[in-house]
């Protein structure tokens, strides 16, 4: 029966993560962006929330219920409302673990998933994006050829978070016409982690280009399940995160407009400002409902490719509009890095690019 009210357990997740995001992430966000690094302690503290465990089914050592994607979307919105770079950094291991849980073999899960769930934060990561303007996940330039019981992997990836110290990467590649994913230990021969990348936003999350120069992989390192649905799960994660960023910006701009006076009254009393805020709120809610519906379909096992794609596309446009207006409402202050809204605008613009950096 249709309902837009989170269940009790979902509400608990929302409340818990919201508190963590506002108390632990938001206060660090400015300096983390400026210094381009995440304090290690916040990852440790965040790990204790058990969000990764919430995404992994019980049979595989997690605590996920039948609404794992939806709960993941709720958590990501809250994390991103605190700070998206820190939030994604915190959930980075999920980009490795969720694909294993959904499409991995028993042996792969035993080797990688079990120790991760039983241990502390470990920077396992994934490599999907390729650093070209025409990156296309359905036509990857990174390719793997089968040769006996091995694969030969060649290609260049970008936006690979923590590639410098991840024990292994989940590398997406094309095998013939198929989309495939391989577990690649970072110390494999032929793997070269290049310089750290510099981006407009998401600066607290260190990312690297990684070259795979004829890397020989055992056949058992390829995930046996279908890989395309993982992209849908990432699109939903991006949509939910975009909602979080937008909400953070909207709430900040709203509070500012109520308190900032011009011509003797709060600027929020001008329709030009008030209407901008009304439209921001409407668009945030609309994008959230699309993300929830796509997540709900994932959890039901229904086809979700179209819904996930539309939710992500909608959220991409929405978050740019909302953060851009937040900058405008703050006027000159909006442009100053001491205030968070310009950072949110820098992050918002990246959402059409961020595929693979988060997953539900």
């Amino acid at each position, binding site marked *: 029966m249709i309902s837009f009210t989170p269940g009790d357990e979902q509400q608990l997740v929302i409340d818990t993560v919201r508190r963590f995001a506002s108390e632990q992430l938001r206060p660090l966000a400015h300096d983390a962006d400026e210094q381009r690094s995440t304090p290690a302690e916040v990852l440790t503290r965040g790990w204790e929330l058990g969000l990764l465990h919430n995404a992994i089914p019980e049979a595989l050592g997690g605590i996920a219920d039948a609404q794992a994607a939806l709960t993941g979307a709720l958590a990501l919105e809250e994390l991103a409302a605190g700070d998206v770079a820190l939030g994604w950094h915190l959930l980075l291991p999920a980009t490795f673990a969720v694909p294993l849980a959904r499409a991995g073999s028993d042996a792969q899960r035993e080797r990688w998933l079990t120790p991760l769930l039983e241990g502390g934060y470990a920077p396992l990561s994934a490599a999907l994006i390729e650093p070209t303007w025409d990156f296309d996940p*359905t036509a990857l330039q990174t390719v793997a050829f089968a040769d006996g019981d091995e694969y030969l992997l060649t290609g260049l990836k970008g936006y690979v978070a923590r590639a410098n110290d991840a024990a292994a990467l989940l590398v997406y590649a094309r095998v013939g016409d198929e989309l495939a994913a391989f577990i690649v230990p970072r110390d494999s021969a032929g793997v070269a982690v290049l310089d750290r990348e510099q981006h407009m936003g998401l600066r607290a999350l260190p990312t690297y280009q990684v070259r795979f120069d004829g890397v020989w992989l055992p056949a058992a390192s390829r995930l046996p399940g279908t890989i395309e649905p993982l992209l849908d799960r990432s699109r939903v994660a991006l949509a939910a995160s975009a909602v979080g960023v937008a909400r953070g910006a909207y709430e900040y701009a709203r509070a500012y407009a109520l308190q900032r006076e011009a011509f003797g009254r709060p600027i929020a009393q001008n329709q030009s400002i008030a209407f901008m805020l009304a*439209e921001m709120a409407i668009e945030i809610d609309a994008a959230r*409902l*699309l993300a929830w*519906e796509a997540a709900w379909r994932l959890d039901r096992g229904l086809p979700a*490719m*179209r819904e996930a*794609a539309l939710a992500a596309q*909608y959220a991409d446009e929405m978050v740019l509009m909302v953060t851009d207006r937040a900058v405008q409402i703050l006027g000159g202050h909006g442009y100053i890095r001491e205030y968070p809204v310009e950072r949110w605008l820098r992050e918002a613009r990246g959402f059409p690019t961020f595929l693979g950096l988060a997953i539900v």
Partner: protein
Amino acid sequence: MIDFEMPTPVSRQVQFIGMLGEQVMRPRARYYDDHEGERPVEYTSLIWQTVRAQGGRNFSADTSERLDRDGRPRPRIGYLMLAHMVEALSWGDAGMYLATPGAGLGGAAVDATGTPEQKERFLRRFGEGEPKWSAMAMTEPHAGSDTAAIRTRARLSDDGREWILDGEKIFVTSGAMAARDSAGFVVVWATLDPSAGRAAIKPFVVEAGTPGMLVTKLEHKHGIRASDTAAIIFQHCRIPRENLLGSEEISDGRSSGGKGFAGAMRTFDATRPLVAASAIGIARASLEFTITYLRQRGVTIRYDVPLHRQTAIERDLRQMEAQHRAAWLLVLRAVTAMDAGQDNALEASMSKVKAGQVATFIAQKAVELLGPEGYSCTLLLEKWMRDARINDIYEGTGQINRLIVARRLLGYSSRELR
């Protein structure tokens, strides 16, 4: 728990109305668009049977309590059902939907504010005989969104037995059918004392054919032409004193038990999502037609390709689809809150803002995409584009609803944010 599963009775109803739309409304849609002012009898006669069988309540939500097999109350789905019915009828033809006979908006006012005696006297007719309409007359030539500024006067006659109405109302939906062409009535909002503001504005029931009530004009409209939109003049129009709905006292909404002007404004919380649902029906009609038309001509829509590989048509269609779904979900959120008995003024206005805009965007885009065909009257797209446009205007313009949303979000009164 967050859930998107639709209750079976709702899906069944949508399917049934879809057939009605396809077989009864669509084939006559062009004719009544070309013949403005003619009653769409194929639809009104057919739907009247159903409306009459339900005691005349055509678009009022079933809010009765029902129990499941274990004796627990079932979740209410009255407004959810209603939104789906309005959406599906508007998918068939929005103008005809607006011309649905029955108790309608005027009846809703009687239902909400009338005494048992008044309800019997005014509403009984919708359960028997020939099709009848009721209408709501609020807007005046100088007062649209600013409803508190209406000037139509109501004075008590010298013997105290009658109200005498004087004034001019415009944009009365189904006004001609309610006031002149059927045995219906018009609920007229008039002031007992122009200096007393909202508190003095009261609803009065004027029976069809009452001397002094004159339909002076039928508007020629951009769209929704199957529905009549009338101007009505009241000249010393005498009605029984018992035809005032609610209290004669000049007081604020609170002390009149929410049945005065403030009460009328609150009914918008229920009706705005329904106008939004109507908008979405037109949007879905345009979208579905466009996609089918293009698919039949070899155009595909891919969802898994990145932006730079999408064709311009794909990008437009994806945007239309996402906007359509987003707006519809906002409507569903507003009506499920209504069914749950929650305050939904914010959600109602949000859904109205969004759907009003989205319906127009989608319908205009559909005409554009199909080029010379889209613009031609051989298809219904150009009509749907004209029909869609009203939804950002009536039942509160997009701007009025933004104002309501903004006041709610900012915690401002109507004085603080004007």
